[in-house]
């Protein structure tokens, strides 16, 4: 047993943390949040240059990481700083799917920061179900609608799931393809998504199935849990600071036992969340990965809600304002529960898997 990061991962964590602390402060982030594109091309280029995108891929794929703990290290730091750039969807999910399809040249562009992708799987009435796909593929032309597709407007290519007969397969669709309509909108916790409709839109089969999507979905779960953990670390740290500095009734409010005990509970639960992320990252490619991942996502969802709500409550009104950093962080934490299956979804999945 060894719970220390390897030297390489420790360096990656230190570098990324320092970079984001210096370059991704509240003012910069608010500027990005208010921008039309919803993300900063400069930040994206610098993340690529720092090797952050490359860390999401194995050496075989042209990267220098790619394991569960590499992904966890990167996303914990992105979450800590409340980063809204679509690293999870564009680089990790899009890039890893292309890597699985053997598109080495495109993966190289992703790692270099030159290529943006979007992954369109969920549909308006699929909620979190993975096998609910109504979009059809007939002779490699796609027709259907995809819901809340992250980064769709900025993507050069979209990776889209469709049903070819009974089989769910993945297709690569160019942004300019005929019959492709992208209706973009901003997201509550930053970044942009879109409703995507396809009408006889030509796509290139990637030779990937639902099983390949699920393998990438597992990596996304690790990333999402780690991102939420990073955000929770920021929320608890900010709340601790606030309790020690904010004075009411002539003393720091953290000296009131009612608040001090609740702060202690948050710190206890934060350690639980940290362990859950370690479990997810460490077991992501094991045969019983799904059991671990569902356990982690459920726990992160529950504790995330507690941390976000308690951090706001203990701050009081100031945390209700849009410009205050904690407000953004709390939104990131809660919105993590709306991706890749929520607390209840993973509770049910855990029950089903542990009964099996």
């Amino acid at each position, binding site marked *: 047993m060894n719970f220390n990061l390897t030297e390489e991962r420790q360096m990656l964590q230190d570098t990324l943390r320092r970079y984001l602390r210096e370059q991704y402060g509240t003012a910069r982030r608010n500027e990005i949040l208010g921008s039309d594109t919803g993300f900063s091309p400069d930040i994206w280029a610098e993340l690529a240059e720092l090797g952050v995108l490359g860390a999401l891929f194995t050496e075989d794929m042209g990267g220098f990481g790619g394991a569960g703990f590499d992904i966890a290290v990167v996303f914990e730091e992105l979450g800590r700083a409340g980063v809204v750039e679509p690293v999870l969807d564009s680089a990790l999910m899009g890039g890893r799917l292309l890597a699985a399809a053997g598109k080495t040249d495109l993966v190289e562009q992703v790692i270099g920061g030159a290529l943006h992708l979007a992954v369109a799987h969920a549909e308006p009435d699929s*909620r979190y179900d993975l096998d609910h796909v109504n979009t059809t593929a007939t002779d490699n032309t796609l027709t259907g609608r995809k819901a809340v597709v992250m980064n769709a407007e900025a993507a050069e290519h979209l990776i889209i799931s469709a049903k070819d007969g009974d089989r769910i397969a993945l297709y690569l669709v160019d942004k300019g393809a005929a019959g492709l309509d992208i209706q973009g*909108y901003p997201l*509550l916790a930053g970044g942009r998504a879109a409703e995507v409709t396809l009408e006889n839109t030509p796509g290139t089969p990637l030779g990937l199935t639902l099983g390949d999507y699920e393998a990438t979905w597992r990596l996304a779960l690790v990333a999402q849990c780690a991102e939420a953990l990073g955000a929770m670390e920021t929320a608890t740290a900010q709340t601790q600071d606030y309790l020690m500095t904010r004075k009411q009734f002539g003393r720091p409010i953290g000296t009131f036992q009612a608040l001090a005990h609740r702060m202690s509970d948050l710190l206890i639960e934060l350690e639980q969340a940290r362990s859950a992320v370690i479990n997810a990252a460490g077991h992501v490619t094991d045969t019983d990965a799904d059991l671990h991942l569902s356990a982690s996502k459920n726990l992160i969802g529950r504790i995330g809600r507690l941390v976000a709500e308690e951090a*706001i*409550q203990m701050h*009081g009104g100031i945390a*209700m304002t*849009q410009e205050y950093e904690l407000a953004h962080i709390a*939104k990131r934490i809660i919105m993590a529960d709306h991706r890749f299956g929520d607390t*209840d979804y993973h509770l049910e999945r855990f029950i089903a898997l542990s009964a099996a």
Partner: protein
Amino acid sequence: MDLSYSPEEQAFQAEVRQFLADELPGDIADKVRLDTDLTKDDMERWHAILNNRGWLAQNWPAEFGGAEWSAVQRHIYDTEAADANAPRIVPFGLSMLGPVLQKFGSKEQQDHWLPRILDGTDWWCQGYSEPGAGSDLASLKTKAVRDGDHYIVNGQKTWTTLGQFANMIFCLVRTDADAKQQEGISFLLIDMDTPGVEVRPIILLDGCHEVNEVWFTDVRVPVANLVGEENKGWTYAKYLLTHERTGLGGVGFSQAGLKTVKRIAKTANHNGKPLIENPHFAARVAQVEIDLRAMATTNLRIISQAAAGEAPGLEASMLKVKGSIIRQEINDLARRAVGPYAMPFASEAVEGANDRIPDPFDAGPVAGQYFNNRKLSIFGGSNEIQRGIIAKVTMSGGGK
């Protein structure tokens, strides 16, 4: 014990329901249902409709033009209004300042200000909280110094709800810097058009502009605008805080919210079935509904006591805590129910955003509302303050 409304109360309920069906403008009800920000005009229109019927000042005595409703009647109205998606009555003039002027104001002040509240001439906002005086309101620092027939006011108020629409603000100001905290505070009415008053917007985390900062720089306020006696403002403020106590639990809002959750959950798909049939989700909904049913009765018990002339004390704090927890739980269920569609930012602040987000549930910005309603356990005396009141009264030996 009799849990039913009397025949008179039933008739009143039918009358309110009919009135809402006939008079509530459809465009306003739609906005309330979808949690879209109401404009000043929307709110003024609704006030005028109520005033026309004599139902605007529900708790005022008839001598001041009020409806003089009983606590039960007000509860009936609140429930029916929430069910019909009527906007809440903007409380600052009607529920807050009105009763204070009626109890502590001079005859001149009553004659001048009260009719203007009813006919909408004045839009009032509340100047209580300051950046350093939230839960600890008595530590407020905004100063008013006497200068002949005027006070000169300097300082800053915050969390001023709908201050951007207001032309008048009632403020707690410090008139005696040497007195003990609560004893040097006065209650002052300030015209917001006076030079030196500046309103700055605060945008909340869901993108809405509903609160403001109000800054005062050498603002001259006529001494005639002092309510009651100098340095007695804390007494009036406390009266104001304890006066308007029905509706604190937000029962009507919770009932309406629960209906929305069920409606969404009947439409939303979960593994090929409606979400409402999913045992985990159904259990969450049932749990909060069970709590709400009990709280509705608690609320009615307290209202009956108030109707019998007993001033609610602890019970008001209890209702506020429990009511906010239940409402927030319902908001949480609504955001869960819409699944991934909780993520789009459907804000009025983003031009055209609503048109581009095809919301399959016609639910409105439920996630925004979830975040916005975190305020319920913070404002008007946070839940921590309410629990402190309950503990102090019941465990310090000073209570009944």
